[in-house]
C-alpha cells in the first residue's frame, strides 16, 4: 500500500535579513490512504502551499518526516504529480508535447507515448488539440492539459494547488466533475488545495480546515459528497441541506480566523 504519511511535520521560515522566524507549519500529523481524496481549506497564509510543496519534495521540512508507502520523501519524484494554479505549461511546446513531456524525459518508446497521449487527451476532452500551441488555449483547457500531463506519468499521488482558482464558475464546475471522474477511474490519491469552501466540500472525501500562526490542522471532516457527486449532478448536491449546514459552519470558522488575523494586525 502506498499511503502518504506525515509525522510531526514542521516548517519554519527564517527571514535572512531580519532573522525573524515564521512558523509556517507546526506538528502536522496525518495519513492519507491510497485512493483517498483530500481537500485542504484555510485562510490565506496558513501554510497550505508549504505543506503541498513539502510533499512534492520542493522544500525540505525543518522537522518531521513524510513518507509515501515505505520510502521517505527527499525530493521531487514522478510518483507525486503536481498541478499548479496557472498551468505552468511549457508555452513553447504544443499540447501533445506538453503532455508527453514526462514520457520523453524517461525516453519511453515513441509509439507507446503517442498512444498514451491520445488516451489522456481523450479523457480530459481535448482530442484533436495535440498540435495546438498551449497559449492559444483557454484557461480551462490549459488546466486540462496540465492534468493530462500529470496523469500520463501515472503518479501514485496527485497534488493540486488551487488548480481551478483562475477559472470562471461554469468551467470550474465542469472541471470539478472531471476531477471526480478521474479520481474514480484511476483510483489515485489526490490532495487538492482550494480557496472555495464549496469546492472543498464537493471534492473532498476528507477535508482539512487549517489555521494559521502556527499553521496547523484545525479541524478534519469526512464527507459523503464526493461519492455522491459521482452519481448525482453537483448542482443538486449543493442544494442538499447537510451540505449548506457544513458550508456555513466552515465559513464561520474561517471567518473567525480571518477576524483574528485582522485584529492582530
Amino acid at each position, binding site marked *: 500500500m502506498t499511503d502518504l504519511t506525515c509525522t510531526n511535520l514542521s516548517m519554519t521560515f527564517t527571514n535572512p535579513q531580519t532573522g525573524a522566524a515564521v512558523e509556517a507549519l507546526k506538528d502536522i500529523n496525518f495519513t492519507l490512504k491510497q485512493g483517498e481524496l483530500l481537500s485542504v481549506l484555510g485562510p490565506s497564509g496558513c501554510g497550505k502551499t508549504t505543506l503541498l510543496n513539502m510533499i512534492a519534495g520542493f522544500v525540505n521540512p525543518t522537522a518531521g518526516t513524510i513518507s509515501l508507502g515505505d520510502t521517505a520523501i527527499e525530493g521531487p519524484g514522478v510518483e*507525486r504529480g503536481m498541478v499548479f494554479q496557472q498551468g505552468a505549461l511549457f508555452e513553447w511546446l504544443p499540447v501533445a508535447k506538453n503532455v508527453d513531456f514526462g514520457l520523453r524525459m524517461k525516453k519511453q518508446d515513441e509509439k507507446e507515448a503517442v498512444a498514451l497521449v491520445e488516451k489522456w487527451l481523450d479523457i480530459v476532452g481535448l482530442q484533436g488539440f495535440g498540435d495546438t500551441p498551449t497559449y492559444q488555449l483557454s484557461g480551462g483547457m490549459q488546466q486540462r492539459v496540465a492534468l493530462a500531463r500529470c496523469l500520463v506519468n501515472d503518479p501514485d499521488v496527485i497534488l493540486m494547488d488551487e488548480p481551478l482558482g483562475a477559472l470562471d464558475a461554469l468551467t470550474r464546475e465542469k472541471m470539478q466533475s472531471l476531477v471526480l471522474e478521474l479520481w474514480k477511474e484511476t483510483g489515485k490519491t489526490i490532495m487538492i488545495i482550494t480557496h472555495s469552501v464549496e469546492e472543498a466540500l464537493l471534492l473532498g472525501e476528507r477535508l482539512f480546515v487549517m489555521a494559521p500562526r502556527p499553521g496547523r490542522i484545525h479541524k478534519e471532516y469526512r464527507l459523503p459528497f464526493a461519492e455522491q457527486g459521482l452519481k448525482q449532478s453537483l448542482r443538486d448536491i449543493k442544494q442538499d441541506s447537510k451540505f449548506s449546514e457544513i458550508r456555513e459552519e466552515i465559513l464561520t470558522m474561517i471567518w473567525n480566523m480571518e477576524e483574528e488575523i485582522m485584529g492582530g494586525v
Partner: protein
Amino acid sequence: MFEWLSEERAFIAAFLVIALIISFGVSLTIGLKQSILRANDEVFGDPDRTKGGWYWSVCGASALLLIWFYFSWEVGRAYFPKAANEICQVAKIEESISPINAAMPIGSRYYKSTDLIIRNTAQLDSLEAALPVDLFSAQEASQLLSVINQTRQIIAAFSNPDSQDPQSQKAIANLAAEFDFLSEDVLAGYDGYEPTPEALLQPKWGITEVEIPLLPLTPRGVLFDNISLKAKSLADTFLKLRSKSAEADRLIAKTKAEIKTLKEANSQAQGSETYVKKREAYVKAVERIFKRVDDGTIFPPEALAPLYISVQNFTASVDDVKGGLGFIDSVFLPGNGIIKSRTQCTEQGPGRWLPKPTDVVATFTRLANPDVASGGGYKGTTLLWWKWLEISDVVDFFVPDSVIDMLPGSYGTHSADGTFEPTFKDNLLRLAKGKISLGAIPMLDGHIWDSLFRVLVAMGAGILFGVPLGIYMGVSRFFKSFFDPLIELYRPVPPLAWAPLILTIFGIQDDGKIFLLFMVAFAIMVISARTGASGTQLSKIRASHSLGATNQQILRYVILPNALPEILTGIRIAIGVCWGTLVAAEMLAGTTGVGFIENVARTVSDYELIWVTILIMGILGLLFDIMMRWVIQKTIPWRGKG
C-alpha cells in the same frame, strides 16, 4: 546605360523633383481629407489613432527628399544648369577686385588705412607706457620716445590730404577712371560673345570631381570672364600704388637713422645675456611698428574716395548685368554662394557637404560595379561581389599548426642520399599550412562582405561561448558569483575604449576587430542568456522536476527554450552594437570594410562617398534588424504569452 544616366543626371533630377512635388501634394491632400473623415473615429490617445496612414509616410518621404534635393543644390542644378557656371564667372570678378575691396569699406566696416592706424596707434601707446627705463640710459630712453613719437607723426603725415604728393592723387584718379571705363564695358552687354570650343568640352557640373565648370559656357559668362581679367590687372596696379608725402619721407629717413644708432648701441651693450636680449627685444618691437607704417599703405580717406565710388559703381553694374542670376543664387543655391579660389569654383554651404541625391546614386553605382579593373569598387576591392575561395586557405586559417605537432608520429628527416621523403605527419602539416590544394568554393567578397564577415564571426563566437555561460550563470551559484565580477567589470567599458589596446595586441587585420566585436557580443549574450535563464518561472521548473526530468534535461528542455526570447533579443541588440563598433574600429585601422571607405573619404573630404557609406551602413543596420525581428517572430511565437 549607366553612362547615359550619369551624364543626364541634371535632367533626371528635374523629372524626379516634379514627381516628388506631385506626390507630396497628392499625399498631403489625401492625408488632410482622411484626417477630417476620421477625426472622430477614435478618441485622442487611442493607439488605433497611429495605425495605417501610408499617405503620411509618402508625404514625409517626399518632403524629406525634396529638402535633400533643395539644400544639396540639386534643384538649382536641375533647372538652371548653367547658372552656377555664370555665377562662377562673377566670382572670378570678385576674386579679381578683392584686394581693392579689402582696402575699402566694402564687405568690411573700415578703410584698411583706418584699421592700420587704430591698431598701430594702440600698440605704440602700450609700448610707450611699457618703456623699460632700467634697461636703457636716459639718453637712449629719450631717443626711443622720439622714435615712437616720430612714428606717430609719420602716420599723421600719411593721413593728411594736404601733405599728399599730387602724383599719388593722380594715380588714384586714373585708376578710378579705368574702373569707370570697365563699368561701361560691362553695361555694354554681351552681344557677340561666344564661349570657346574648349569651354564647351568641359565636363558637366557634378560629373567629375571638379564641381562647377570653370570656363564660361554662356555669352554673359564670357563677358564676366573678360571683365575679370581686366579687373585683375587694375587690381595689380592698385597693389603697387603707394601713398606719397614729402613730410613723411623726411620723418622716415630721420627715424631710420635713429633706430640704426639704437641698434648699434645694442650690439655694443655690456651685461648679462638676458639684459642684452631684453634691450634688443624692445627696440625690435618699436622698429616693427615703424616698418608697418613706412611703406605708404596709409592713405587719407579723401584720397581713396573717388576710387571707392568707382569700384562701387563697377560692382553695381556687374550686379545689373547679372540680373536674375542673383535671384537664382540666393533662392536655389542656398548657402554662401560660389567662391572662385585658385583653380576651381566651389560650392559653399550645404551644396558643399550635402551631396546631390543623383550624385550619391552615381557614386554608389560606381562603387557597386564589381569590375575593379575598369574603375569599379573602391581601392581595388569590390563593394559586394563573390570570388573563388581556396578551401586550403580556410583550413590554414582554422587549423593551427601546433595541433599537428600534438598528433602521434614524427616528422621526417632527410636521408643519406640528400633527399627528403615526407612522412604522413609531414603531409598533415602541409595540409594545416594550406599548402595542399583542396579545390575552391564560391564565396562572397568585397568591402561590405568584409564588414559583415567580421560581425558574423564575432556574433557566432559570442553566441557559442556567451549563451552557455549565461545559462549556467542563471542557474548556478558558483558560475554566477565566479564570473559576475569579471563580466560586470569589462562590460560597461565602451567597446571603442578597448580598441587601441586590442588592435595593438592582435594587429590591424581581421583578428583584432573580430576579437573586439566578440567582446561586445559575448558580454551582451551572457547577460541576456542569464536574464532569460534566471527568469524561468519556478512553477515550470518544479513541474518538470515532478515529471521526472533530470537537471540536464531541465537545462536543455525547459530553461533554454525559456531563455530563447531573451537570447534572441540579445542577439538583436548585440548585432546592432557590433555593427556600430565595427564601423568605428574600421575607421581606426584596416584596409577594407565600409568604415575604411568612410575613413578614406573623410581624409580627402569626399562628401559624396561619406554619405554613400553612411547610407550603406544605415541600410545594412536596418536589414539586420528587420531580419532579426523576422527570426524572432518566426521562432518564438509564444513570446510574452507564457
